[in-house]
């Protein structure tokens, strides 16, 4: 059973990690918690359902469609809910939090309106392919999810720390004005980031749909909350931290069900972050930048 539970935990954790990567990217660049990320993820899952189950098209089309749609959503999110707030005087740091909550409410209810409140099955033959090892069944999807999450993490962390674009992104994150003085097209950098983050959400959406065969308008909320917990766990804006935090949480949740009380599963994420923050306020992988009295 332990082995099976480990597989469950890693699968869940990898999904958490992909969701968290999207959160962390936006936070890293804009210093904003994008509360609509969960809902964008949910829309991605619905696009997957539409393309495969309703239109009967192959899976790769679903991936492309979901990435495209969520990328467009990301663009719109940036244009409508984030850009108008940027650089405006007297804008509290809560404003983007609220406006993205607005987007999340809008998206959730919109999809509820369009798709109905219920669960939609994500039936796809690919999701059925399995490998049998003794009494343990592993689905190809589970392996795929793990591989994709690791790959995304590696690509992102390379991109951020080693490439010029990544540095530009970090500069933008720290100070818009300075970055633009150094020749960074900050508008484009930000838009690109939000689009990439959203597309990550879309990918995660399809993977969840396939893995658990369940897609509904509410799935964004609980996934979003977990994502938040993870980026705190891993250190805000830290890509490796998001990955580690995701896996850690997935495993912890699974193990508490397996060996403890499943009633407390939802609390695990938050109890862990409360404990971790008290020990390391900057998160597991966050940098400690204590400020001097200058």
């Amino acid at each position, binding site marked *: 059973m332990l082995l099976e539970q480990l597989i469950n935990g890693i699968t869940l954790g990898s999904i958490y990690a992909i969701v968290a990567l999207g959160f962390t990217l936006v*936070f890293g660049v804009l210093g904003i*918690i994008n509360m609509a990320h969960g809902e964008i993820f949910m829309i991605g899952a619905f696009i997957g359902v539409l393309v495969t189950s309703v239109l009967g098209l192959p899976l790769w089309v679903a991936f492309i469609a979901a990435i495209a749609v969520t990328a467009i959503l990301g663009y719109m999110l940036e244009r*409508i*809910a984030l850009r*108008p*707030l940027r650089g*405006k005087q*007297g*804008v*509290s*740091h*809560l*404003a*983007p*939090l*609220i*406006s993205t*909550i*607005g*987007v*999340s*409410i*809008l*998206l*959730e*209810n*919109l999809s509820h*309106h369009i798709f109905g409140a219920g669960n939609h099955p994500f039936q796809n033959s690919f999701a059925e392919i399995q490998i049998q090892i003794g009494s343990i069944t592993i689905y190809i999807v589970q392996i795929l999810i793990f591989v994709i999450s690791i790959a995304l993490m590696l690509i992102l962390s390379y991109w951020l720390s080693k490439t010029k674009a990544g540095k530009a992104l970090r500069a933008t994150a720290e100070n818009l004005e300075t970055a633009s003085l150094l020749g960074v097209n900050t508008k484009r950098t930000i838009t690109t980031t939000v689009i990439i983050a959203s597309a990550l959400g879309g990918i995660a959406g399809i993977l969840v749909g396939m893995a658990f065969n369940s897609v509904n308008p509410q799935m964004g*909320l609980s996934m979003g*909350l977990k994502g*938040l*917990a993870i980026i*705190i766990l891993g250190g*805000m804006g830290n890509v490796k931290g998001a990955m580690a935090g995701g896996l850690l949480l997935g495993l912890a949740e699974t193990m508490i069900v397996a060996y403890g*009380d499943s*009633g*407390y599963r*939802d*609390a695990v*994420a*938050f*109890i862990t*972050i*409360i404990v971790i*923050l*008290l020990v390391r*306020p900057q998160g597991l992988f966050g940098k400690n930048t204590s*400020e001097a*009295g200058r």
Partner: protein
Amino acid sequence: MLAELLNPYHLQIASFIMINIILGISIYITLSSGQLSLGNAGFMGIGAYTSALLTIHFEVPIIIGVILGALVAGIFGILIGIPALRLSGVYLAIATLGFGEVIRVIFVNWESVTQGAVGLSGVPHLGRELFKTVTAMGFEPEMLGLRNNQVVYLMVLTLLVVINIFLVWFFIRQNKSRVGRAFAAIKMDEKAAESMGINITYYKVLSFTQGALLAGFAGALYAHVMAYISPADFAYHRAIEILIFSVFGGSEVIWGAIFGAAFMTILPEALRVISEYRYMIYGVILILMMAFRPQGIIDVSFLKWLKKMIKFRRGTDHGTGTKKHN
């Protein structure tokens, strides 16, 4: 005439507005020292459950129950506030949100006490208890030409209005004092505030605790106005709702939280005609608000303008010679 005016529907909404105003103030108070706490739904739950359990099982009078509920929430406020000192900004926000979730999960799982998701029904109803007391003293609703539920809700509302007036008065005075200035200083620059001799530990915990106490108080009142509570009442959505009160109305001034709570309670009712699209519109309003008036509806300059208007109305004969330096 009076009977027409006192539509229980309106009284009910007005009562919810009053409770929500307390919640709005609760988040405003913590914000006024620069701490964004999203744990107020959790504190509200603690207050509600404490008071409900005490009144149900130990037949404690409602007033005592409510006060104890608020106090217990306040104690939790201290317990959470102290470690929370190490956190700031979004970290604090998410950690407190997490605290709220943990509290909810405990309510769900601690079935022997809380009945889990089934919730606590049969919580003594504030209005109905008051009603019993006054009828026992010989009062008959017909004497005023009113129906029972009108009297019940009228009494609840009156009580809540009195409480609210007191609270607003209390916090306005506090704000204008040394304590309020310390909160504001910490909000603007913690290190500088510390250098000016402000004990930031004390004041941050104080404002956090005041927020928790108020949220617990509102929760306890809520329990006795609804007469039924369940863990779902104190979940994520509530936390966000409370946040929106303050941010929509304006988080710089206490009037912002008050206005936001009132407006956001009426809005769903006003949009009832188009109920299918209600939440979508709700979302759109939030987005537009932030784009066009991110500081919230009511801010310092709005208040100044309002004061000027009132002065202008009242005293054109005195002249309005306000000196300006800059």
